[in-house]
């Protein structure tokens, strides 16, 4: 997101407007920051301290890590991270391959029924996967994927194909002449796809990967409904079940929340520019 270097012609001309604006901005920052601050401080408090101390106070001992130790060992958070990691990596590979193949065909070939096919790929956008869970559940169960990690992988690949819109727009910007000259040199379509198009699509792939990884990391329903077995729990469902049983221990709840949000916060700190652009792209196009 670039800011113009030229001074904008759209400026407040009255001082009170400027003051009110800063007031509003600061209020928003406070509303975002305070819950996070409280959760972080709680995570370093003992159970009794969390109960008795002022909720806005700093913890007595900043090195009190028992809550974290407890949730990572007893809560088996590591298993959750491993499972989420497997889901993200495999689903991303599948989604990117599938999305780029579909986009390649839709963008570079003309054939009968193409329009119909395009509409078919639009279908998951019009009828969101979450609305059909009741029926999808019976399908997944009947083909024997229930309570296996493949349920998650397959559903993440098959029911969310927003990456196609990002890919299509990107491919349209790659000149057709590149394909054609490769054809004349005798390259097969497979070669054009794998050697020319895929490398050219790197920025679009990165955008789609960020959005999908975030979506999978934060998802609740697919792991909750289809992979309830304890060895298949993801980060989200691990915390859901472990914390839900111990909501009165706020120190523990805090440590659970912080452990779960740290990875995406770190990602945000380092890749902020790409993430914002990518998420905005994905939200508007899909």
């Amino acid at each position, binding site marked *: 997101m670039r800011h113009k270097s030229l*001074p904008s012609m759209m400026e407040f001309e009255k001082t009170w407007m400027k003051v009110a604006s800063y007031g509003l901005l600061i209020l*928003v920052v406070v509303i975002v920051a305070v819950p996070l601050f409280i959760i972080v401080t709680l995570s370093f408090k003992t159970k009794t301290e969390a109960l008795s101390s002022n909720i*806005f106070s700093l913890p007595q001992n900043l090195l009190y890590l028992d809550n974290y130790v407890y949730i990572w060992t007893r809560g088996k958070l590591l298993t959750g991270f491993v499972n989420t990691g497997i889901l993200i990596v495999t689903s991303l590979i599948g989604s990117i391959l599938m999305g780029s193949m579909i986009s390649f065909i839709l963008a570079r070939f003309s054939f009968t029924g193409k329009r119909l096919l395009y509409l078919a790929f639009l279908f998951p956008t019009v009828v969101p996967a979450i609305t059909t869970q009741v*029926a999808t559940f019976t399908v997944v169960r009947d083909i024997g994927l229930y309570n296996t990690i493949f349920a998650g992988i397959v559903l993440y690949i098959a029911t969310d194909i927003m990456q196609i819109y990002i890919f299509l727009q990107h491919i349209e910007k790659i000149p057709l002449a590149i394909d054609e000259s490769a054809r004349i040199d005798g390259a097969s379509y497979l070669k054009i796809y794998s050697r020319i198009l895929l490398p050219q699509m790197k920025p679009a792939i990165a955008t789609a990967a960020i959005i999908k990884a975030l979506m999978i990391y934060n998802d609740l*329903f697919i792991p909750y409904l289809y992979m309830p077995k304890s060895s298949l729990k993801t980060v989200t469902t691990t915390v859901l079940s472990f914390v839900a049983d111990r909501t009165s221990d706020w120190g523990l709840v805090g440590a659970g929340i912080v452990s779960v949000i740290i990875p995406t916060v770190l990602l945000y700190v380092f890749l902020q520019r790409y993430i914002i652009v990518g998420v905005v792209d994905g939200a508007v196009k899909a």
Partner: protein
Amino acid sequence: MRNRFTSTQKREKTVVIIAFLAIPFLLLALFSFYPAAKLVQISFTNWSGLGAMEFIGLKNYQELLRNGELLQVLFNVSAYIVVMLIQVFLALVLAIILNQSSIKGRNFFRSWTFLPYMLNGVAVAFMFSIMYDYQRGPLNVLLRLIGLEQCAIQWISGSYMTNYSLGLIAMWRYTGLNMVIFLGALQSISNMYYEAANLDGASFIQKVRYITLPSIQTTFEILLLLGFNGALQAYFEPFVITKGGPGGITDTFITKSLKYAFDFQNFGLASALAVMLVLLILLVMGVCKGILLRKGRQSA
């Protein structure tokens, strides 16, 4: 010679198209089209999830309309819609403010506002269940601190207002996203228009009214569409915090439908409710598309 060359080429083309599309299409058919068709089918039966299906016509739909469950869910979801409308408006105001180069620390403000969107929904829901706690939650502690003891609020007590508390969590998460999308649209407005308006001596409010708002109308409509769909499909907050209770007063379409299916083994009723949700989503999309099309014709 030439003829044979083009025909092998044609064959290669057909092979590539089929090879590239077969697996994706199969996956889509199995996990998207087929479940959607099956959903409609189940909605006309009294299926328990296992065993034989018995066709019962429109009975599930009639029951949803008669027992008031549909009305209750719609009423609950309307709270999310109200909050969403406030959220889009707030996002627009923030974007207009942050679009001004004279505001200092714009990047900082933008980063902070967007941050909640990055956070895991379940973690955020747990976080707010602490914020909303009646006895020890910071919101009520703050109210008591400034002497408003009697104003301490039962944020998630299980009255209808709980839906607004849950909706506010969604607002906390998504305002930044909406703001950033608006900001992108604002930055694509040419400065030329504002320069011309300045020459005419237009005030700030006039510039917003006659230049900014008309230029970002499409973005506005997209965000409203996304917002409506998001509100209709809300589930994270009630699912984690209230489980839709007590007595269904915080149930949304999704939590209610899952409850019917997996708690009461009534897949028929669950599917009927889901079909109604899909119809509502289609209606919202249709209305939006209609508005966009009519506008397109006017400008053509």
